[in-house]
């Protein structure tokens, strides 16, 4: 029983971070910073493969998957021991990925290769590849597991894939340099940021059409220096958090009115974000300032910044 093994491993582990733990990939340091959510401090820094970017946890929290882009590998870390147990065959230059709801199939964007590689994490084999546009980047799988999407940065499209048969269904042009995509929990809407277009777009999943485009305005920041990247949705579907890159702010958007409620000042060049499992905190990675900002979600306030490594990129939080 995996759960029992994990529990045993956790008990045996000598690490202090038995409570909620955040993992942050440091792109230029080739490390993962481990943060204890209780103390909001780095408790350990672990060496991993070259240029770690996208990271995510297995549903049970026992494994951390790491896109080691320049090692052309996805590394699997045992979160109990913080040791890399094995690599998965990722295809060239993996940058972002998404785990299917079955917890088994990883959809990986291969940035240099114009492909999406699907990996079976149990057999550790490539289950399929789909050709997409140039510089595939954002990846998401629909909550029902039937649909996968990829954004291509240079082709400027959202590519819709059949996640079961691993075929391309359709492509939708979106604003320039789409970086990140995320489905709503009910699977009806897809949210996509365009870094160079400077917008957040909302797509209707049934028709594949863009039905709204949200612009951002921050006093004193030129509009073309607002470069949205990561997106996070609250579980109740009410709020959307958007990392605005070099504008050094996170925008909070009302998911129903599609209006920006607030801009939160965080560290420099904010990339990606992750909620703590209880949804009380949102952690952001700030590439240029080399730190993680901690947002109190209820109060919509930044309460702390935690220094990590150089160019923190991805973040994931384990219960």
């Amino acid at each position, binding site marked *: 029983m995996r759960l029992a093994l994990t529990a045993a491993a956790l008990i045996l582990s000598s690490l202090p971070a038995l409570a909620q733990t955040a993992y942050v990939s440091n792109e230029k340091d080739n490390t993962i910073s481990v943060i204890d959510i209780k103390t909001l401090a780095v408790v350990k820094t672990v060496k991993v493969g070259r240029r770690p970017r996208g990271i995510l946890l297995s549903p049970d929290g026992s494994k951390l998957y790491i896109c080691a882009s320049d090692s052309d590998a996805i590394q699997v870390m045992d979160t109990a021991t913080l040791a890399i147990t094995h690599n998965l065959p990722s295809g060239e230059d993996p940058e972002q990925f998404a785990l299917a709801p079955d917890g088994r199939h990883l959809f990986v964007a291969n*940035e*240099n290769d*114009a492909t999406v590689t699907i990996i079976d994490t149990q057999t550790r084999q490539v289950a399929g590849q789909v050709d997409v*546009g*140039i*510089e595939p980047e954002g990846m998401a799988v629909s909550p029902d597991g039937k649909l996968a999407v990829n954004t291509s*940065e*240079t*082709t*400027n*499209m959202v*590519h819709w894939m059949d996640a079961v048969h691993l075929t391309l269904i359709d*492509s939708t*042009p979106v604003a*320039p*340099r789409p970086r990140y995509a995320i489905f709503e929990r009910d699977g009806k809407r897809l949210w996509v940021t365009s870094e*160079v*277009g400077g917008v957040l777009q909302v797509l209707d999943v049934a028709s594949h*059409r863009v039905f709204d485009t949200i612009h951002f305005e921050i006093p004193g920041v*030129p509009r*073309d*220096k607002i*470069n949205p990247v990561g997106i996070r949705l609250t579980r109740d579907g009410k709020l959307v958090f958007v990392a605005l890159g*070099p504008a050094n702010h996170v925008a909070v958007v009302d998911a129903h009115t599609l209006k920006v409620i607030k801009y939160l000042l965080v560290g420099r060049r904010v990339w990606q974000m992750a909620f703590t499992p209880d949804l009380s905190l949102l952690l952001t990675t700030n590439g240029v300032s080399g730190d993680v900002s901690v947002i109190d979600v209820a109060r919509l306030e930044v309460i702390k910044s935690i220094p990590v490594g150089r160019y923190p990129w991805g973040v994931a939080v384990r219960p």
Partner: protein
Amino acid sequence: MRPTRLAVIVAALLAAWTAPASADPIPAAASELTIAWLGMRPADPPEPAFIDRPAPTDEGLAGLRLAVSDDNASGRFMHQSFGLEAEWLPPGGDAAAALRRLAAAGVRFVVADLPAAVLAKAAADPAAAAVTIFNAGAPDDVLRNRDCRANVLHTLPSRAMLADALAQYLVKKTWTRWLLVTGPTAGDQAYAAAIRHAAAKFGARLVGEKSWTYTRDSRHTATGEVAALTQDGDYDVVVVADEAGDFGDLVPYDTWLPRPVAGTQGLVSAAWHPAYSAWAAAQLQERFRGQAHRAMTAKDYAAWEGGRAVGEAAMRLRSTDPVSIARAIRSDDFALPAYKGRTLSFRSWDGQLRQPILIAWARNVVSVAPEDGFLHPVTDLDTLGTDKGESKCVLH
């Protein structure tokens, strides 16, 4: 929303009688659009510096080839395909006749690397009126002013843009007293004029001007010419105007005073640079290197921008109708992503592509202009080069 069937058929009919004499044959698709390359080999090319040998023989064209390949990567999701036809003219060749031939064959988009006078004459040919020519080879400001034409767009930055970008950086550093050393060619003189204009525009001062008159190769007989020439009072920086690369590389580390060197050599300004990797430029550099087996130059990049402008407009329009594409490219809403962190568009008053300019030495991009603090009521990109109010261009 898929393109309407009718639009696809009309575009296919329009494209059907064009000659697909492409270097890289493209499989037939719903609608094909040909982009042509028209280059002219220089009569007496300057000998490349030893470190730059061999000189590329496909400069510019290689950038367009990559653009067409990028266009097709998007196009295959839109049932659009793009072809490339390339023509190199001998020195003094008849560019107007070549343009007439291309226009008669149905080509509506041409990326050109032609000397300014040749380009101006060819673009004025009545047969060229329906063709959009992307100037990817001539930095001459006269093409953006007195000799401007509605059918010519400039993806290569003008000398004014390059000089303004460099001036902003030097002024930001408070290196505002310049010693200008100018070579003998018309291009050198034009670059020097742009430098003088930029100094006045941004508040720098030319504290001395020298002409480089040595004709022999002093690389092997360095006897202090540079030191002697730069022994002339005090200055913050030596600015060299040497477009052919005759002497500019001899100046750094050999000046009378310990001062930096900038201009056409030393710290340079350019739309592209081999050391540039930000904003996913590393991806473009690697794609280019994989295809051309050399580093991408500023001319390659300018040609790539021209080819990509056509593909980007076609994708957004979901149509390969050349008239619609030509109109869309010129609209203020056109937004070309070009690895600079912001989208680019063409200036309505002279057809120049407004774009950030890199400030770089051989191994690093030091800064990207426009620099912070240089303000403009519309876009800070228009602080570089000829702004609307000072343009002498009357488009026809």
